[in-house]
């Protein structure tokens, strides 16, 4: 690898600053093959979820392995287990070389030094693809999924925004020529008209797991101007706006199927695909499921819009995953892991990733307007990612504890085991206890979320 040593700082500067050019100073082009040469035979251990985006990468993987000689060892877990599995691996100094990070885990992973800041690799011209082009990622997505406290750790790989999926056939039949623009319309106009004969206007997945926190609780908080925390990091759930949002959710339940508290994504998407529910607010990643005739009876009726707006505007749910290099990996593994992450999220592969059912976070991938004909979710997705609330769910290290509290009391409220006021009082107190222990109130810890 003599030529690599010959590359001086000039090459580094050239490679990084002039991302568009992939010809280095001495005339040799950067290529994945060459970059990976020292790491051939290295195995990269990574956790994948059982979701479409990961299947897409898995299908594309042979190409990477062939080019690099790096072996990617995929360990599949359901989302529900993914955090626990990774935490247990990292605290035990296990074999994971890549961390798969849901945006709400990033504060935690970063604070524990389980992941390596990305610039360790992007500043290394041997590894960094001149075409990396960080600016091509939707800034909101990159910062929220991959960044913490001003440092970028991971590159967004499996990317979601909440979207309104609606069954245009059912809506037309009821006399609507478009989807509701506001949450109020959804409840007051569309709700009564579409809930009849065993069909329901809407379903909101609310199962007691991350779904309750992300898809149900937070989704109703933000559009009404509510939030989890105020500026002092005290509970903001007792605020008028937060209460209004939660009250709205409670009222909306009359237009949802019974037992919505047990609905996870699978049940919700299934109810929609079977034509039992007219509208759902779900992640973009479900597009392929609801438009495939194999899994959907109403594939031809599916239309997609951005989530409705509330008094505080459109605050669509934001979720998604980035991959970061694990600090516990040795140097070769780290380098190989970085090459894998860079390849999986690259501009060049974004098109194929999209085709295979993934949702890339590359702006360039959506530039072609014709794509919107094939992938109806694209306009709504791009719009949702223009601006959103990165702290839709706080991303600090305490989230795993707080989400448990939200899940517990959020479902209790929905089941009317406690009133909204009682529920959020309890929730707020328990949440503040965790934050107190963490040192936010004593000034030991900066108020970052």
């Amino acid at each position, binding site marked *: 690898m003599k030529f690599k040593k010959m590359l001086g700082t000039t090459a580094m500067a050239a490679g990084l600053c002039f991302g568009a050019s992939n010809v280095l100073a001495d005339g040799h082009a950067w290529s994945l093959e060459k970059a990976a040469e020292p790491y051939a035979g290295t195995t990269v251990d990574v956790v994948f979820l059982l979701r479409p985006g990961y299947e897409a990468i898995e299908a594309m993987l042979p190409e990477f392995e062939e080019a690099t000689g790096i072996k990617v060892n995929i360990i599949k877990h359901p989302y529900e287990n993914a955090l626990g599995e990774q935490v247990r691996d990292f605290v035990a100094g296990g074999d994971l070389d890549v961390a798969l990070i849901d945006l709400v885990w990033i504060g935690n992973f970063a604070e524990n030094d389980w992941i390596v800041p990305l610039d360790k690799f992007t500043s290394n011209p041997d590894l960094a693809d001149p075409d990396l082009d960080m600016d091509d990622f939707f800034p909101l997505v990159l910062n929220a999924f991959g960044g913490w406290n001003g440092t970028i750790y991971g590159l967004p790989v499996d990317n979601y925004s909440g979207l309104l999926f609606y069954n245009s056939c059912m809506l037309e039949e009821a006399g609507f020529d478009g989807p509701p623009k506001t949450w109020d319309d959804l409840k007051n106009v569309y709700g009564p008209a579409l809930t009849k004969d065993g069909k329901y206007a809407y379903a909101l997945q609310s*199962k007691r797991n991350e779904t309750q926190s992300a898809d149900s609780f937070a989704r109703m908080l933000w559009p009404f101007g509510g939030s989890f925390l105020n500026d002092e990091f005290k509970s903001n759930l007792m605020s008028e706006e937060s209460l209004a949002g939660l009250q709205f959710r409670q009222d909306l339940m009359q237009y949802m199927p*019974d037992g919505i*508290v*047990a609905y996870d994504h699978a049940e919700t998407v299934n109810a929609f695909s079977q034509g039992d529910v007219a509208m759902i607010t779900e992640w973009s990643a479900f597009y392929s499921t609801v438009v495939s005739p194999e899994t959907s009876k109403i594939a031809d009726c599916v239309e997609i819009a951005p989530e409705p707006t509330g008094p505080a505007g459109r605050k669509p749910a934001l979720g998604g995953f980035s991959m970061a290099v694990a600090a516990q990996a040795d140097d070769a593994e780290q380098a190989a892991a970085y090459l894998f992450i860079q390849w999986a999220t690259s501009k060049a592969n974004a098109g194929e990733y999209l085709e295979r059912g993934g949702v890339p976070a590359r702006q360039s991938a959506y530039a072609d307007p014709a794509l919107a004909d094939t992938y109806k979710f694209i306009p709504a997705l791009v719009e949702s990612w223009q601006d959103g609330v990165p702290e839709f769910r706080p991303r600090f290290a305490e989230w795993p504890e707080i989400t448990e509290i939200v899940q*517990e009391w959020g479902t209790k409220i929905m089941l009317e*085991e406690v009133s909204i006021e009682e529920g959020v009082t309890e929730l707020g107190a328990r949440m503040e206890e965790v934050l107190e222990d963490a040192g936010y109130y004593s000034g030991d810890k900066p108020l970052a979320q």
Partner: protein
Amino acid sequence: MPGKVPRKTIFAFIGPSVIALAAIGIVPLLYAAWTSLHFYNLTKLKRVKFIGLENYWDVLTDSVFWEAMGRTFTLLSIALPLQLALGLGIALILHKPGLTLLKTLARLSLVLPMATTYAVVGLLGQVMFNQKFGVVNQFLSPFGGGNINWIGDPTNAFTMIIFWDVWQWTPFVALVLLAGLTMVPDEIEEAARLETKSWWTVLRYVQLPFLMPGLVAVLILRTADTLKLFDMVFTLTRGGPGSSTELISLMIQRVGFRAFDQGLASAQAIILLIITIILSQIYIRVFYKEV
């Protein structure tokens, strides 16, 4: 009686077991006791610190903990009588003379639920009790129960847990009691049957004494197993909807491995252990005069 045996021999026989069980049973408990006195969060290992009994105080004053405990005993107090009643009924049916082949088949089939992997019972429950494509609602639909939401309704979900617990463990009770019934000497039972036609009288005065030891064992084991119950509920409802089926083991697992608060979870586990030991002490010392 066997004579005195040298200490060395005793130790050679019993030592390995004691050491093994101490190493895997007691050392972890000591470690748990140590953890329970600390702020010990898996995702905050940089900030482990001694906090005395704070975790215990938090557990003892936490309504959620006691609700989970209450739920566990509610399950026991509903499921156990059902299991005893059904188990006794089955034992009596199997004890009646005649129909040898059918009885053998029934007895064999009773072995199946007990041997089934508990986690699989929960998975099976999800499939069979599904509101839309579950076979249970299909069976119930002629009786107007075709659209019951088993998994999504707190009471129904709890009922479902009871159902599966009863399904899996009634056979155990039945077989234990059947064994008790077969220990009644034939001549005594026949003599009693000549005197009275009431099966209840026979049961109460002739058979019951022979059933007592089995009943005690059932009581001990079912209590312990209910406090341990995790797998089936975890795969069936994960404690939901809300907290309606969150039994004590599920709650501790959640705190320890989902909220990662190992300190608090250890305190909960130690309190559960103390409750278990007290109950076993009472049961075993009072009812089970062995060795």
